[in-house]
């Protein structure tokens, strides 16, 4: 996770409080991935073709997990089922031990979803948007207001906090959506291509904030087409093709599985995803 070190961020006040309980002497908490944040078993979804095929996936708490795969591989469908946006045809989803299919409300309370297309309200200001999101998650205003202010500050949106979002650029909108996902302090953050369309500075802001969350003990699952991001940021990488998980592990483990110690993730990815397609 070398990239995080390069980004200078002010740790939001609420995170500093959260971090303090698990703090190491240098002020950065690192939670051990000793329990599962997400457990998916036999997850299946069929549209006109099989989109997700009996997928098994386990992601540990405090882990940064990148899900990569070619277009149409089933990444977004998998995550949408996990987030409760799509009903699976079969299988089970457990989030921190909560059965997400049986108790969706309880599962949603601890997670946040950010899609590739930032969906925010044009006629609300960023601060009003965050107030709404905090209200939906039932966060007390005395807690959520300072968190919202800190988030907008750390994402560089503070000067625009009272302006309606209708004129915001894609990057600004994505940052507002990300702030919305973080304002209720979720334990699991699911992001679908969060860096699509962002400029380098905005992308760095987002990556920095996510890294900081992981260091504070949050679990992050992210789909991305940018393999370099997965390579630099993720603790583990899952490669999905034709709705199945074809490989999983740290970058070193993936290299070992493929038998090339010094190969790039791009080469590994191409080798892995072309196999099931050829089959």
């Amino acid at each position, binding site marked *: 996770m070398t990239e995080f070190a390069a980004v200078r961020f002010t740790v939001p006040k609420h995170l500093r409080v959260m971090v303090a309980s698990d703090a190491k002497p240098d002020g950065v908490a690192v939670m051990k991935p000793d329990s599962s944040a997400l457990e998916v078993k036999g997850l299946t979804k069929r549209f006109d073709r099989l989109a997700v095929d009996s997928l098994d996936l386990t992601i540990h708490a405090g882990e940064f997990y990148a899900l990569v795969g070619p277009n149409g591989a089933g990444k977004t469908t998998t995550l949408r089922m996990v987030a409760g946006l799509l009903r699976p045809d079969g299988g089970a989803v457990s989030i921190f031990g909560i059965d997400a299919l049986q108790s969706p409300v309880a599962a949603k309370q601890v997670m946040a979803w950010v899609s590739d297309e930032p969906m925010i309200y044009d006629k609300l200001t960023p601060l009003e948007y965050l107030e709404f999101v905090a*209200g939906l998650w039932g966060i007390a205003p005395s807690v959520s207001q300072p968190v919202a202010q800190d988030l907008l500050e750390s994402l560089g949106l503070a000067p625009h906090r009272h302006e309606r979002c209708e004129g915001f650029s894609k990057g600004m909108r994505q940052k507002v959506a990300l702030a919305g996902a973080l304002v209720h302090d979720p334990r699991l953050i699911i992001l679908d291509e969060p860096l699509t369309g962002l400029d380098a500075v905005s992308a760095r802001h987002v990556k920095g904030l996510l890294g900081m969350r992981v260091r504070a003990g949050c679990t992050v699952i992210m789909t991305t087409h940018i393999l370099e991001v997965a390579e630099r940021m993720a603790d583990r990488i899952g490669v999905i093709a034709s709705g199945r998980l074809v490989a999983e592990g740290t970058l070193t483990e993936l290299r070992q599985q493929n038998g090339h110690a010094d190969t790039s993730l791009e080469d590994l990815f191409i080798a892995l995803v072309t196999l099931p397609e050829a089959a």
Partner: protein
Amino acid sequence: MSSATALSWFARHELRLAWREWFAMMTGGRRKRTRAAIIGLICFAALLHLPAWAVIGRFADLRLPLDKSTLIVISATIFLAWTLMLSQAIESVTRVFYARADLDLIMSSPATLANLFSVRIAAIALSVTAIAVLFSTPFIDVLVIGGGARWLAAFGVVVAMGLSAAAIAIAVTILLFRLIGPARTRLIAQILAAIIGAGFVIALQVAAIMSYGTLSRFTILTSGTVAAHAPDIDSIWWGPARAVMGDSEALLLLLALALVLLGSVMAMFSHRFADTAIDAAPYGIPGSRRAKERPFRTGSRQQALRRKEFSLLWRDPWLISQTLMQLLYLVPPALLLWRNFADSSAALTLITPVIVMAAGQLAGGLAWLTISGEDAPDLVATAPLTPSGVIRAKIEVVLIAITVIFCPLVAALAFASPYQAAVSAAAIIVSAASATAIQLWFRVQARRSQFRRRQTSSRLATFAEAFSSIGWAASAALLLALPIAGLICGLITASLVAITWKFSPRREP
């Protein structure tokens, strides 16, 4: 490619786009529905001949020369149609300015922009005219069948009206841009379109109420007072009325005037069209609309949802213009109520159907905006709330808004006639609930900005919503005058709503 060829090519491109937009609106964007849309359109056009016959059939035998009173009625009808066209044209022009679509491509091309935008202005005029011709055809048909081919001249008058309405709309919108800026023009233009569309009818009704205590606008038009103040029979002001009756000289003059007007607007404004479009593009840049800092509010999750919906409704320019229009329509009955306050005249009964229908229509629009028009569906779907809780909060918003708008009128009515107020209140609730239920059954995920196209998602829902509002309005009116008939009408309307539910798409539990 020569300049003339390029222009004709661009004209063809514009017409093709206009045709495809109209076709998509008719078929809901699904090509498979083409045959159904054509059959539906033919049936609708055939059906429209019936009300056309009822409204205009008795005038088919009219011949020149006409008396002053008839000239006034025909001229007022033409002017009313023209204001409706103007209202629609202002809406179309505003849409062209604010929809970026191909503006980047056009403005980055090496073509002469003034020429291209002249073509675009002409295309707007043609589309406004085409729609006007389409809607006026059943009425003119009735006159031609009943009174002969001389009535075909009315098509020429409709064309002249369409061209002139488009020309005035373009001039007004560009002037609004210059005067108040692009940020405010969209809202003001929508309000202006609503006021122009409804204003003339309402003004006539207000005048009729003030002078004769009736809602009928014809009372004022056929009165001696208006005839006394109107120009002489041979005045040029009666040109449009004479042109409709087949006076070829008047018709040619009218067409020439409309073309000159459109040509002048094209010459004067086509080079400013590009500037206006450029100004409109960054509308809503950060800093244009600011909100005050205030502390976050406490409350339940449903309250957070309701607050969000109220904020968005309050900031919705379409809704403001539509509500304003509904309120404008309520001015005549309110005036009638005031005039007949101490009196239990039959005229007072007319208030009930008007407000019940307005409540149904407004509730339908509000319900679409809150239930279907969700700009952040993923956020709401991933929030720790049950789907039924979300829907309930949204329905509450619609019903609260309707209550706030219509309560003062019902309260005033209660002083004049408590029974009528009770019937009106019940009918308002049922009408609003029916329209909301129909929108709920036929909900489709859409952005709020797609409101204009909400009718295309389901024709059945659109017609059911309109018929339920009319049905409940009629039931309430009949209940006051003839209770048994009111009950029967209410049962028929309830059956219609039930049938609509039966045909609504099934959803996952």
